[in-house]
């Protein structure tokens, strides 16, 4: 536990360095080349998130707590049922919608229709940064976070159009009019700019975990450097079955969703195991 804490601080330090260097914004053209969509992430620190849908399936209230934590931390206005003006950094859609292009007619009941957390995938090969005409959004080379500069954004919404995941929101109206009690250590936005999740880069720089990760008590969301073979995210992905959203588009999302059940067959269906033993003689 102590070791992983130290490792995380080291990683956070690197992130802070990256933030300092962010003023020299680099074009993302290098990542725009024909890349193998299944290839592992590029060199260096690559921050990634693993969301365990099995654990979330057992903890219905957690989804809302994650959303609440993020939106309060980042002064994201709550428009209620007004989907037209809605701003979402992290939100829940049912499992089938989250993985829209895949088919899940016969999945286990505990995943069916389950609220699934959706956020910016911080793609290794992001289409949104490629289309931005002012480099107001870019992929930070030091850790792969897809950043936003709300002071440069011209509000053309081309990035919103280019994102295959619906992760970006546009401020159709003044968000400050909706915020009753803003968090003072995080900026509010003005009308007319695009915003989205930034993997809590401001918290990472202070050595903290992302807000949505922090409210999780049982590793429902795990965050870390996927390029580090000993990181927790990496260990989990080696053990478990995880999927990403729309992998065929070659964007290489860095948010992974665990869908398998870690229990053995014997734990899930002892009757089935017994049957095999009787017929085949295997224990």
């Amino acid at each position: 536990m102590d070791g992983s804490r130290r490792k995380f601080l080291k990683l956070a330090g690197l992130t802070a360095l990256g933030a300092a260097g962010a003023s020299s914004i680099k074009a993302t053209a290098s990542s725009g080349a024909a890349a193998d969509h299944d290839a592992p992430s590029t060199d260096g620190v690559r921050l990634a998130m693993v969301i365990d849908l099995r654990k979330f399936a057992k903890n219905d209230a957690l989804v809302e707590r994650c959303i609440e934590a993020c939106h309060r931390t980042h002064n994201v206005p709550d428009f209620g049922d007004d989907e037209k003006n809605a701003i979402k950094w992290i939100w829940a859609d049912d499992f089938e919608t989250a993985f829209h292009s895949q088919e899940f007619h016969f999945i286990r009941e505990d995943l069916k229709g389950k609220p699934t957390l959706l956020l910016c995938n911080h793609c290794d090969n992001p289409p949104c940064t490629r289309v931005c005409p002012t480099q107001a959004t870019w992929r930070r080379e030091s850790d792969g976070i897809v950043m936003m500069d709300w002071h440069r954004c011209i509000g053309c919404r081309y990035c919103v159009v280019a994102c295959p995941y619906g992760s970006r929101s546009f401020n159709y109206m003044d968000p400050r009019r909706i915020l009753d009690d803003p968090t003072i250590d995080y900026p509010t936005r003005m009308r007319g700019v695009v915003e989205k999740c930034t993997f809590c880069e401001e918290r990472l720089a202070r050595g903290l975990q992302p807000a949505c990760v922090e409210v999780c008590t049982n590793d429902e969301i795990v965050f870390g450097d996927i390029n580090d073979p000993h990181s927790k995210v990496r260990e989990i992905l080696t053990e478990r079955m995880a999927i990403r959203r729309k992998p065929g588009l070659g964007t290489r999302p860095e948010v992974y969703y665990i869908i398998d059940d870690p229990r053995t067959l014997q734990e899930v269906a002892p009757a089935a195991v017994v049957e095999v033993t009787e017929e085949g003689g295997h224990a």
Partner: protein
Amino acid sequence: MLEKALTGTRTYWIWIFFLLAIMGAGAAAWFWQLNVGLTITGLSRDVVWGFYIAQFTFLVGVAASAVMVVLPYYLHNYKAFGKMTILGEFLAIAAVIMCMSFIFVDMGRPDRIFNVFLYPTPHSMMFWDTVALGGYLVLNILISRVTLSSERRGEPPPSWIKPVILLSIPWAVSIHTVTAFLYSGLAARPFWMTAILAPRFLASAFAAGPALLILLAFVVRRLTKFDPGKEAINKLAEIVTYAMIINVFFVLMEVFTALYSNIPEHIHHFEFLFTGIEGNTTMAPWMWLSVILAIVALVILINPTTRRAESTLIIGCIAVFGSLWIDKGLGMVIAGFVPSPLGKVVSYTPTIPELTISLAIYAMGLLIVTGLYKIALEVRGQIKA
């Protein structure tokens, strides 16, 4: 020469003030939008581009279509287009200015427009579209001004303008190609991600633009002593015919590819357009009207008798323009967002302020066309006393 647009008959001024009144209403709506935000439009989190961007896309085509009179006249020395070229170039100027205005009113932060030039970004197609449109505007202003000044002095145009005119030909093709690339390079939007989008944009532009030019020429001929000539009109009508046939062919190719391949993400957009999905049929009546108009246009235009008879040609041109305006100025952009990348069907209907602002931009375009055409005809002494 601009002063020639500042004198005119009573009818001329009534028309000018009529346009100015519409522009005033649009300006008021735009100030409201500036103060409240784009929330006053029908746009939403899922449909982020709508009527403004669709008009921009359609009008880029109108701007590019000037090449259909410029190319035969300057490259093939087709003399019959002599009187028409200036009208084509002036229409292009008005269309490009309208395009830029539609982009401007669509921006969330128009106050930051100069960021596009302060941080030029070659990997963004929007950057190239800005370069292409800006350049095209400069080219057309330069060419029309130089050629018209020479004409006024009774001299042939200076020889240095010829290469500039030749440059404007591929440039016209480029503006609509880059505009198509804005859409067709996005993995997130299967409806637009088709290699035929740019060719289809060009075909529809070369049908709708010259159709509008024919209609404008008829209007101008009625009001002034200007006569485009029978041969020029017939030739333009042939261009409209071929371009419209090619456009319809391209559209059918898209429909085949989507339907036969049977990939749901491709089919859904066409379903939304023509039958509606999940009970949302907002576009279907429009799209079928577009189909009917296209059929009417092709029947009139392919038949040489109806194409050459002015009364039917006018109907044909209106049908072409209407059909393509619906297809490109409504359906093309909106269908890209419905269903959304998450499969959601979200309605979009432009609001009254959104339409008022759009109408005002069209009025401004008409004002520019009126003023510029007046100048051209004054120079040629073709204005009725």
